[in-house]
Structure formats: structure tokens, C-alpha cells
């Protein structure tokens, strides 16, 4: 599978990363190289094989429904790039 300029444009948009046209040309070669490496997988017959999502076969533990967290705004607000009245401020969200 080769990665085209269109592919890069599409995935960069999904990933919200700005990519200059020079970078995009370099990326085309590098990403295509990586995809060629990945494509080695296609030679394996995996019919009937169960996909493996986790390294160990155990089930999800459950947490009791009890409040354990408290108001930590003095810490979290100080770490934010922009806040106002305890809100995180971003450029206008358009729906």
C-alpha cells in the first residue's frame, strides 16, 4: 500500500495536525515505507483466528459507586493555557 498526498491530507485532518507541503512530500516516502513493512502481514492466512486485544485473558474489574474525588480546580486551572471563571477557554465552538 502506498500513501498518497491525498491520504496524508485526509489522515492529517483526522489527526488535527498541520503539515506543510514540503513535510508532506517527505512523509509520503517515509509513510509508504512503513506501510510496505506493515504489508508483510498480508501474506499470513488468519482465517478463523480470534483477534487478540489484550495480553491476558481476564475480565474487566468493577469499581464501587462511591465518590472518591474532590474539587481540584486550584491545581487544574493553574495548569491550563487559558481559563476564565473556572472554565477552560477556547476559540468559539461552532455547532
Amino acid at each position, binding site marked *: 500500500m502506498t500513501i498518497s498526498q491525498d491520504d496524508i491530507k485526509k489522515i492529517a485532518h483526522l489527526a488535527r495536525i498541520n503539515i506543510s507541503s514540503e513535510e508532506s512530500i517527505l512523509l509520503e516516502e517515509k509513510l509508504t515505507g512503513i506501510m510496505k513493512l506493515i504489508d508483510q502481514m498480508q501474506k499470513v492466512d488468519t482465517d478463523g483466528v480470534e483477534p487478540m486485544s489484550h495480553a491476558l485473558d481476564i475480565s474487566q474489574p468493577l469499581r464501587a459507586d*462511591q*465518590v472518591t474525588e474532590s474539587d*481540584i480546580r486550584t491545581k487544574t486551572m493553574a495548569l491550563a493555557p487559558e481559563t476564565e471563571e473556572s472554565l477552560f477557554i477556547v476559540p468559539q465552538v461552532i455547532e
Partner: protein
Amino acid sequence: MDWDIVIGIETHVQLKTQTKIFSGASTSFGNEANSQACLVSLAYPGVLPVLNHEAVNCAIKFGLAVDAKINKKSIFARKNYFYPDLPKGYQISQFELPIVGEGKLSIPLNDGYKDIRILRAHLEEDAGKSSHGILQGKSGIDLNRAGTPLLEIVTEPDMSSAAEAVAYAKKLHDLVQWIGICDGNMQEGNFRCDVNVSVKKKGSTTLGTRREIKNLNSFKFIKQAIDFEVNWQIETIEDGGEIQQSTILFNPDNGETKAMRSKEEANDYRYFPDPDLLPLVVSEDHIHNIKQSLPELPGEMQKRFEIDLGLSEYDASELTNNKDVADYFMNLIKRGVSAKLSANWILVNLFSRLNDADISINESPIGFDQLADLIKKIEDQTISNNAAKKIFDALWDSPAGTVDSLIDELGLKQISNDSEIEGLIDKVLNDNGAMIEEYKSGKDKAFNALVGQVMKASRGKANPSQVNEMLKKKLSN
């Protein structure tokens, strides 16, 4: 040309838990912005989700209540997209294997019942909220709601009118409160519907392209939005246009629907199993225990009211739409009053006052104790039905009063004493010789007029059936 309307609904039900679905932060409503945004809610580097047991229980309760298959193993997946109110850049949801599989919900219609098929119900987390106007050209992000547990309930496209859609939404709204998994507060957004609407030529088997109206949080809006949308789609097609699959918003101010602007790209959510969460496995025992803890379900209760209490299907159904109403009714009959009279008083008199005042039965100024007292007085003929209505109205306005004191105060005690009534009848017969003649010549109307005269003479207090009986006897002598 005639059109078929095809509607499916996805409802986001906020589950009644103390804490968020993947963290121990509180879910209580209306607190200061971000005061409930813990490190997990804020998606801090390094933090991890741990699933809330109670959220799982709520989902299982719902599955059992709609006769659905509970999947013993379900999987959490990440739905990836960027939005400022979505802190991780993905929403944890269930995709391929939801906890609740296919089920059904029966909804009441004017001419009977209809089963709406539930396709699935899955657990997921809510997003935060953005607000505008704090600073010019900017938005403020409050993540208190981020991570609140939701159950998304998805129907098949089984509804064919706005009325059916509203009936479904109401029935579902009643049910989730009935089984105690949601507080049902629609203003606070705890029960929100996304409605998929399409139209097709009558009888056609091919579905039309659907548009999804997002986030409707009142039954009125559901109806208005569907009505507008259906008209719009039909007009568009009749004008030679085509419907584009899209996500739309309903504007309650003008009653119109409109495509969302920000979705300029095709969504590609890149779902994949969340590696931070393991498969959710629920045991047969766990499901059994939850089944034991469920209250009697509305359908079962309705049947019981019909068979054991002899109520009509309509009355039994109306009384079991809502848990609070059913509880009120059960409390009434526990006090030894007739089920039929109780049903009547709730469904007619009480409902009409509740509707006028726009309040719920829990807020009724007249409690079931008072209403039971009142009904008892009708049953033992202390007061007439009409008098009871007057007392009911008086109680509504000043709930501190008692039925007994109001009967005295308003002088509404029924006259059921034979000799007292006989005296009244004798007096009336004395004064109305002409009417007696008319009656005897076969004019039945004259009898009613005579009853009226007796009642008038008693100032409404005489027991009407007694008056009837005794008057008939007298006249036949």
C-alpha cells in the same frame, strides 16, 4: 401523493449513579464549573478508566425490563473525534458488542398497543458542555458532565408518526424512572432523544434517506421537530430535490430543523476496542440477582390490576404508565377503598388538577391518605359524589384541612335518614299536584323534575338514590 414516515430513536439516558462511569467524581448537577472535573474527567496524562459497577447494573436492569438479551460479554470501544468538550479526543462507548441486545417496548396508542423493537442498548460516557459569551468570540468548557454514565437505547425504525415517536419516548421515559435507573429530568438533559426521520412513497419497500435530529429534550420538541422535518422532506422530494443524509438541529424558537454547520467532513470515528478496559463479563448469577431486585414491571402490574382488581384495560394501563402514579394508587387501595373508585378519582379528578397546575403526582397537595378518607365518605354515603368534588377542590386549595372538618364546614353531609327524606318528599308532593298528575299520565320527565325539587329542598344534601327509591314508592301508592 401519499407518504410513509419512518422513525427510529436513539435515546441517551443519564444513569442515576453517584459517580461517573469511569471515575469516582460526583455526578451531581448544577455545581460550579469544573468542580467535578477530576483527573480522569480532564483526561490528564497517565490516568486510566475503571468501570462503575452501578452503571453496569443499570444497563442490566434496563435489558431485563425490555425483555432483551443481556450479552454476557461486552466490549468497550473508543470513538475518536476532536471536540473541546471531549477531553480524551475519544469517547468510550460500546460498538460491536453492547451489553444489551435485542428487546422490545410496548407503547399505548389510541387504538391499542404497538411493539417497538429495541435494537440494542450500550453504555457510554457523556461529554462536557461548552458555553458562549463569557469572552468575546470564545467558548468556555465545563467538564463536570464529562464522564457521566449514559445508556444509549437504540430502536429499529418502527415508528410511523410523530405521535408514535412521542408515545415511545414517553413510555421509555416512564420505564427508566420506574426501574430507578434515571431521574428523568429532561430540563437537565438527563433524557435526550436523537430522532432519525425518513419518508418513502406509501407502500414502497425501499427506505428513504434519513436525517438525524439531535438532542431533543422535550416531548413537545420531538413532535414539533418531526412534524417540521417530515414536511420539509416531502416538500423537498416533491420539488424534485434529494435528501442528503445529515445531522440536524431543532431550533425551538422557530420550530425549524437545520443541518449542523460544523460537520463539514464525513465522520470517521476509527472505532477500536479500548485497550485500557477489558471485556465486561456478567455472570448468570449477577443477572439473576438484579432480576430479583427489580420492582414489579409496568406490564405485569397492569395485568394484575385488570385480573385481580377488575380494572378496565384502559384504567390499568393509565395507572401503570408511571411508577409514582402506580404507587399512589397502590397506597390508596391499601387503605381499604374500592379500586374502581380510586382509579376514577386519580385518572379523572386528580389528573385534571395536576395537569392544570403542571405538576407531578408527587407534588400533589392532596396525599393518598386524604383522598382515601374522601373516597371512604362516598362509599359509606356520608357525602354525595358532587359533594366529594367540592371537598376535593377545597382540599386542593388548603391541603391542611381534613375531609371531616370540610364536610362540616361546607355543610355537605348527605341526608340519608329515611324519615328526614320522607318529610322532604311529602312537602314537595304537596306543593306539586300538577306534576304528580303528569307523572301518572305516563310522562317520565315529571319524575325527574320531582326528584330535582326534592334535591333542591335538601340543598343538594339528600342521598339521590334514596330519594329516587322512596319517591317511586310514594307515587306508586
